[in-house]
């Protein structure tokens, strides 16, 4: 990004993006439906499973394909674990942005446990390609429930530890409270979403507004902030991790037995038509606009990446702040450039 400064004050800023542009949308038009899932892994490479789910839901919606209940529960548990992993990474790196070196060591320790869990279930630490059109790739291991319960306890402890260490630290508060404030109306006008929007006090969450998958069966809260500053954006995420663990808890209890995938042909040919699906990613609302003309490849795939809109609003937040705060504000948005550029 290019900053114009007057002494230590930032007068204007212009983000320069596009250095990670791989033409994912164009590639999608030239791949089979099953192959596209792997491309979605590589958009937001911190929350792969949430991305996969968004695309698979789009195809399922277009085809009217039913997903077995057990598969939905496995999806929800993994997506929420993914959300926790993503937020843990944020908490650590945000600490570094604000000058706290220690939290990242704690959060990476916890995140590593989730990654190992993913490895046990999906076979890969990242780029899982586990959520498939019609369900999930395979059933979970036998000891999945016990392991996740153990993991949950460890995570709660880890989150509390980090929370105690960082959240109300005086220096951290001085660096983040009241820095990079944005009000609710401009946040909505810019199309911000996810924790960054909720920090402004707007309780907007796709999981609640338009429950997809089996999210309507769980009891969970949407943490919202008050001031829309960097600290609120940080703390909303910390609280969100606790809510995610609550969802995981309930999902483990309610998980039914049964098949995990609706068998489909390798080469899918959804009927001609178009759908738009929305999903809640750790960074905000992901949207997939899928246009099909009845062939084995989509006609057009447009991805609405959450970080793209959040980054657009950065200009509003960063104006008239100090140069040293610019990094904190950018960090508080938790952007992933893989999905900004696509």
């Amino acid at each position, binding site marked *: 990004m290019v900053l114009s400064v007057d002494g230590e004050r930032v007068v204007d800023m212009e983000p320069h*993006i*596009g250095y990670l*542009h791989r*033409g994912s*949308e*164009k*590639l999608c038009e*030239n791949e089979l439906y099953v192959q596209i899932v792997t491309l979605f892994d590589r958009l937001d490479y911190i929350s792969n499973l949430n991305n996969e789910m968004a695309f698979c839901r789009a195809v399922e*919606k*277009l*085809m*009217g*394909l*039913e997903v077995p209940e057990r598969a939905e529960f496995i999806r929800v548990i993994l997506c929420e674990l993914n959300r926790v992993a993503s937020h843990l990474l944020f908490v650590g790196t945000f600490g570094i942005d604000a000058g706290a070196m220690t939290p990242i060591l704690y959060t990476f320790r916890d995140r590593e446990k989730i990654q190992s869990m993913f490895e046990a279930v999906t076979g890969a630490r990242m780029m899982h390609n586990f959520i498939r059109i019609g369900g999930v790739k395979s059933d979970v291991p036998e000891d999945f429930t016990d392991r996740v319960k153990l993991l949950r306890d460890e995570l709660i402890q880890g989150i509390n530890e980090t929370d105690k260490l960082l959240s109300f630290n005086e220096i951290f508060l001085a660096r983040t409270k009241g820095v990079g404030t944005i009000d609710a109306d*401009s946040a*909505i*006008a*810019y*199309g*911000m979403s996810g924790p960054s929007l909720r920090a402004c006090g*707007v309780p*907007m969450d796709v999981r609640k*507004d*338009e429950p997809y998958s089996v999210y309507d069966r769980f009891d969970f809260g949407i943490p919202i902030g008050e001031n829309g500053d960097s600290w609120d954006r940080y703390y909303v995420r910390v609280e969100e991790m606790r809510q995610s663990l609550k969802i995981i808890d309930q999902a483990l209890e309610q998980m039914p037995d049964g098949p995990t995938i*609706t*068998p*489909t*042909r*390798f*080469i*899918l*040919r*959804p*009927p001609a*038509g*178009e*759908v*738009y699906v*929305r999903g809640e990613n750790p960074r905000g*609302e992901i*949207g997939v*606009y899928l*246009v099909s003309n009845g062939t*084995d490849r989509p*006609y*057009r795939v*447009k991805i*609405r990446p959450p970080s*793209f*809109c959040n980054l*657009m*609003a950065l200009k509003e937040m960063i104006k008239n702040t100090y140069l040293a705060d610019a990094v904190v504000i950018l960090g508080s948005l938790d952007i992933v450039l893989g999905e900004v*550029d*696509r």
Partner: protein
Amino acid sequence: MAYLAFRTKLCRTPRSVEKNNNNGEQTPEPNALLDEKGRLLETLLPNVLSAFDVSIGISHDLMEVIVEPADVVAVCENLKNHSETLFNYLTCLSVVDYVEHLQVVYHLYSTQKKHKVVVKANVSSEEPSLPSVTSVWKGSDWYEREGHDLFGVIFESHPGLAPLILYEGFEGYPGRKSFPLHDYKEW
């Protein structure tokens, strides 16, 4: 070659889907997929947009409004400010290349009413231009720059249509169907 053989063998649609789509003799109602809010919108939209020359239809599970490119800003402003619709959130702006024409698609959402609609405008592929909606939703800024970059759509009265994703001086519009996926020289 083995892959091709495999492909031809398996390229039928899955049986479960065929069953869902054909539905025997009965053809499903066009609004069968609309949810409660969508049905409400179905009755609302003709009143809200009575002053404009639009065609209102249904696209899968969304209400769709097809407008003339020149009317885009007026229709969007009306949809945003009308007390019954209040579409204050631009979810997504996409450009689709249908070869004979380009289509600019606006997915709108209301944070208060929690309903959604899709607005579409067709522009010619030779000289694609339509008014920018940045005055209605600030968030359309980068989407329009991206649409200009990848599809060459000119959004009139946009504050600055500089390249966003591609570098300065890139030739051609890589989003379009006519742009080759391989076989082009970049450097």
